């Protein structure tokens, strides 16, 4: 029984991390048809921002307030990734709308540039980020220990999900975004500045990746290749869930996270990854467009 509860919690934790990393990707992929291979690097940027805030607090502020570095690093990571995402969008992505293969190649190049920049600035070895005091250790219920780190990450992800849903479905900007996604030409003729919508959406997606990077810093070491570990799962979650639908990404991440953890109970982690991929492939054979398909009335869909 303990095993099952622990596996469920671990699955929830793994799914939440995948969801956080794929939320941004779902939005940009769904809205603009841009395959952003540099998404992993925005995760890395968020993680390094956390490190920078951590160092600033450690070096310049008294020990008593040190733990609060983490609360500051979440908006800081969002902001830094938002700004860099906006710059990337203006310079590179905006010229590649609708051209998926070109955007794949171009963003791949950007990802390599960003990785090398991180290496040049921070060194090629990993940097250490210590967890804040209020997040170390775990909550002991009966025989099982639920680590505070992971509980915090689940809570943070749910909060982000709620915010994204509110923005997308309950705000003016959100309806502009959805309109542009469903029928760009019609949205433009209704006076929506689709270019502005695109930049802000891409930047928001990157900002979400930055927040994901913040959580990654708690769980392991931070180096220039940290984004590469998460990008494959993010793409899988987005494709599995159906491009453009939040609920789809949510379900997709859960499927991948839970199945990974449950399969790993019986085999080693490498085989578990292979089996999860197999599940995704079989699933996509039945429903090639993913779980939820965004239907529109455009002729070319």
């Amino acid at each position, binding site marked *: 029984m303990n*095993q099952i509860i*622990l*596996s469920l919690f*671990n699955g929830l*934790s*793994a799914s939440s991390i995948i969801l956080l990393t794929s939320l941004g990707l779902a939005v940009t992929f769904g809205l603009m048809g841009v395959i952003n291979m540099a998404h992993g690097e925005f995760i890395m940027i968020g993680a390094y921002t956390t490190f920078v805030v951590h160092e600033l607090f450690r070096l310049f502020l008294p020990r008593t307030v040190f733990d609060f570095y983490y609360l500051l690093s979440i908006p800081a990571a969002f902001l830094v990734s938002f700004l860099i995402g906006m710059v990337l969008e203006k310079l590179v992505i905006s010229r590649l709308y609708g051209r998926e293969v070109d955007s794949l190649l171009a963003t791949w190049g950007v990802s390599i540039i960003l990785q090398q920049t991180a*290496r040049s600035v921070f*060194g*090629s*070895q*990993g*940097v*250490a980020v*210590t*967890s804040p005091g209020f997040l*170390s*250790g*775990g909550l*002991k219920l009966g025989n099982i*220990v639920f*680590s*505070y*780190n*992971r509980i915090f990450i689940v809570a943070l992800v749910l909060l982000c999900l709620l915010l994204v849903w509110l923005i997308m479905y309950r705000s003016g900007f959100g309806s502009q975004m959805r309109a542009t996604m469903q029928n760009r030409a019609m949205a433009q003729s209704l006076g929506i500045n689709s270019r502005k919508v695109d930049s802000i959406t891409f930047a928001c997606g990157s900002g979400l990746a930055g927040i994901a990077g913040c959580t*990654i810093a*708690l*769980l*392991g*070491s931070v*180096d*220039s*290749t940290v984004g590469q*570990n998460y990008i494959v799962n993010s793409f899988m979650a987005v494709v599995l869930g159906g491009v453009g639908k939040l609920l789809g990404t949510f379900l997709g991440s859960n499927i991948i996270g839970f199945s990974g*953890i449950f399969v*790993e*109970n019986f085999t*080693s*982690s*490498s085989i*578990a*990854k292979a089996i999860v991929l197999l599940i995704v492939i079989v699933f996509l054979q039945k429903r090639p467009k993913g779980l939820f398909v965004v239907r529109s009335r455009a002729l070319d869909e």
Partner: protein
Amino acid sequence: MKIKSAKKALAMLVTGGLLAMAAGCGNQRIQADSTQTGSAQVGDMASQTDPESKTVESSLATEGTVKVGLLHSLTGSMAISEVSVRDAELLAIEEINAAGGVLGCQIVPFEEDGASDPSVFATKAEKLIVETEVATVFGCWTSSSRKAVKQIFEDYESLLWYPVQYEGMEASPNIMYMGAAPNQQIVPAIDYLADQGYTKFFLLGSDYVFPRTANMIIKAQVEDLGLTTVGEEYAAMDQTEFSSILAKIEEAQPDVIINTLNGASNVSFFKQLSEKNITSKELMTMSFSIAEEEVKTIGADILSGHLVSWNYYQTTEGDRNAAFVKSYKEKFGADRVTSDPAGAAYTAVYAWAEACEAAGSFDVEAVKAAAAGLMVAAPEGDVVINGDNQHLAKTVRIGQVATDGLIYEIYATDGVVEPDPYLTSYEWAVQAGIQPLE
């Protein structure tokens, strides 16, 4: 039509320019002109025609210098460990050059990045031997990288100095093993744990040849001691998610975890272990790939109290070590630390220099002959190179991580232990029929 042909000409010009740039862009530190012609980059792998040995005299790039190669992972998951090893090698080279060089020649190092990928190691090793024409190479950490380059060094009859502890089952004539063989690190550690009263062992490692072979040896030894192995798990090299493995560990209820994880996954594992309120008091771990460098990145508070097994620590007593640590910190920063592989790499450069002086030449066969039986004053103490298997006789030291981030010796063997890479002198190993996996 005119515009079309103009576009075509422009495209060809740009392509030609890009190819020229790609050929010209080499790797870092290529100082002297290579004797090969420019476009060697792309054609390297294909040009593996004739593995005859090159005369090493051609490695003297210009009058009065000798080229050596440094082949380590400067990026990727192993960079956290290997960068400090490369630094120790650079320190030794600088010191030897300041004292007059080797045979009157100044050593010129050529660094290559293996990028934590064995196939990249193979390519770069061949590049160093064939294109850069180095006299010898100091490099590798993971056994997969060493296995990947072993054949290359044997085919080209060059020499690799390998500074890291490993799983044994190997004695290549073209590799000098400066790190511990299993009977100088793993076997004594298990004996020590058994003496301390640990009975249930959980084996956790990264999924490649070193942990798999080490675990074969450990399982045979544990059985021979009458104790039990309660679990054996392998993680991917860059794995960051350890929740399932931790769940399996909790279920198996071991006394001690034998940890052969390598690289950045150690950081994730120990962080997530501490998240579960597990310290060394609740569950002891004995690690074979965690040295002072990794302690710094993981965090001394998380690792304090855990055990490691090496032949050298920064805190090891001795004048040679004190001088080494002092120069290392002077050159690289007061907060840098030395570790067993860094010490072994430093020893390797000095050993090569002394062997060349004794041989009077840089020729690989002569250097090897001179190295057999050579005694080198190393930071870990005086070591002797064994001429039969190219390993070193070393003292074994069990250490415990302290809260200040350094490792302190809690047990050491009385004298040096002779290297036995194939474990032929251990009856339980011979009976278990332990064979190399690759």
